[in-house]
């Protein structure tokens, strides 16, 4: 049996195991172990497993993940998200669709402190839904705005998904994180424009609020945003200026978040422990998936399957934009049936050579991947943001949220098109990095 055949059989076994609800990590590791044993021998298997797991566990850069997760979790308990929402409400509240805009604004700023779209959705969702529903906003627009805003959590730095992508593709984590800034701000603006257009076309979905806020109130409300800007400036600014690397930035961010929580007197012993427990648990399943993905990638490398796939696709001589369109559709499909991290770790070994052969920049492609993951997060049937929002606000039914979220897929697809045409929008800031 040829090496390529073994590789393909391993992929099929992996997919079967995944569909049997076996953890993604184990679904990748088991066929990898069998495949390596088949292509090599016991010594090769033992050496490969030992060196891959040990080298990556003892990898300084990988520690960026739990540190950023802790930073986001810690800031969640400070109540900063409700302050951000209140601040944006005083600024946008009276505009058409103003509360929806406030939801996007607060989600955007909270994304700058949290690397997770799920945390973003869960935290902003509770207060935003209360306000929007109280003022007569339709349930679908309420749900759609919250999950769309929540999805920004993985695009605006820090972003766990981008860090994992960077590890798998061996790209600079710092550059990847910085690359998300401009597309993140642009996408938030697109979401706001979408909400405004909905409010203009169907005013009954977003009634205008009569309450007025004075300019003094507006400026006073901005003080809540200062903390986020300080953390963002230290963490992302420090990386941009070359003061420290991504891991150090994450450590500084986590430490600053603990200090902020103490200053705001929101840090009790109980919620401190809960935060650390949640971070440890999340780190556990992310590490397991990443380590096993590396073992599986080793099998793919020795079976030469990724090279075979990329040379076959490039030999078809089809236009680049069609290949790119195929990849976009592939990720939209995968995102609809599986977890985003799983979709990335499984596909990157195949997609990366194709992207390189097409002459695309992998930093740019990281942002494209994240945008596709964002689309998946708000699409049926596996839209995690929707499930999370339904979990924290049961009043918003899953079907209603899906209905409201669909319209927000348009700005995401629009952003992908814009980035395809103007890749420098993503690469501008990383190229200026010190």
């Amino acid at each position: 049996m040829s090496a390529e055949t073994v590789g393909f059989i391993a992929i099929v076994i992996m997919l079967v195991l995944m569909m049997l609800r076996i953890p993604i990590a184990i679904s990748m590791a088991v066929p990898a172990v069998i495949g390596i044993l088949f292509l090599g021998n016991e010594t090769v298997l033992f050496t490969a497993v030992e060196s891959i797991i040990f080298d990556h566990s003892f990898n300084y850069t990988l520690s960026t993940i739990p540190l950023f997760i802790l930073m986001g979790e810690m800031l969640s308990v400070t109540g900063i998200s409700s302050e951000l929402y209140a601040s944006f409400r005083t600024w946008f509240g009276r505009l058409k669709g103003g509360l929806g805009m406030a939801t996007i604004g607060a989600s955007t700023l909270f994304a700058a402190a949290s690397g997770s779209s799920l945390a973003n959705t869960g935290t902003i969702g509770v207060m935003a839904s209360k306000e929007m529903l109280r003022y007569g906003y339709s349930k679908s627009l309420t749900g759609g705005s919250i999950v769309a805003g929540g999805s920004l959590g993985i695009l605006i730095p820090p972003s766990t998904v981008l860090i994992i992508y960077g590890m798998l593709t061996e790209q600079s984590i710092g550059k990847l994180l910085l690359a998300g800034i401009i597309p993140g701000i642009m996408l938030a603006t697109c979401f706001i424009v979408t909400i405004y257009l909905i409010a203009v076309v169907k005013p009954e979905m977003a009634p205008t609020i009569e309450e007025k806020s004075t300019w003094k109130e507006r400026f006073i409300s901005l003080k809540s945003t200062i903390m986020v800007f300080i953390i963002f400036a230290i963490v992302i600014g420090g990386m941009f200026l070359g003061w420290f690397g991504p891991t150090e930035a994450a450590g500084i961010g986590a430490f600053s978040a603990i200090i902020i929580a103490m200053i705001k007197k929101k840090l009790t012993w109980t919620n401190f422990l809960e935060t650390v427990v949640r971070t440890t648990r999340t780190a556990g399943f992310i590490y397991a998936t990443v380590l096993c993905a590396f073992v599986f990638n080793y099998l793919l490398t020795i079976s030469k399957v990724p090279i075979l796939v990329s040379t076959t696709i490039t030999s078809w001589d089809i236009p680049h934009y069609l290949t790119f369109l195929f990849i976009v559709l592939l990720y939209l499909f995968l995102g609809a049936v599986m977890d985003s991290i799983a979709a990335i770790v499984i596909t990157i070994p195949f997609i990366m050579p194709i992207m390189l052969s097409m002459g695309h920049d992998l930093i740019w492609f990281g942002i494209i991947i994240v945008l596709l993951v964002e689309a998946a997060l708000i699409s049926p049937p596996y839209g995690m943001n929707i499930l999370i929002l339904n979990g924290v606000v049961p009043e918003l039914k899953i079907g209603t949220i899906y209905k409201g979220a669909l319209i927000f897929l348009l700005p995401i697809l629009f952003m992908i098109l814009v980035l395809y045409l103007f890749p420098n929008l993503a690469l501008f800031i990383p190229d200026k990095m010190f």
Partner: protein
Amino acid sequence: MIITKVIDRSTSIIKWISMICLLFMVLATFVGVVFRMFGVPIIGNDEIVAIFQVFLIMFSLAFAQSEDRHITIGIIVDNFPTKVQVMIDRIGYTVTALFCFLVAYIFFKAGYHNLTEFHEKTLLLEFPHYFLKFITCLGFFLWGMEAVNRIIKSFLGLVKQVSQLEKEVSG
């Protein structure tokens, strides 16, 4: 059952160790940056963080398993009858346990070789590799044991369900 209690207790202990390691990672990173900015870099600070990370990773794997938090795709199995789901999950736990015990064995051998023959150490702090490899062995072993624990608990849970059903029928 005593074995489930022992595994639960072990997972609880390693959960605390991994939490402490996480906090040490934050502290080490922060202190490292501050000292470097004052012109007094801490030699091997990166290695300190990486060593704590090995502990965090290895001990958080079993903890995540104990709460069934490893990423799974339930799009098909979620629609099956409960008894079929339980059966499939048991197969999943068995596969998980087998893989973890294999990795634990590999790292036990590697650690033993490092201890007796190679004497590999980290570059700056000269921290022995065998220690980290034994920790990796322990981490995967406990992950495997936690998977075994889930199998036992699933059987116990099913026994309870059946007896409950029997009670309802007889009642």
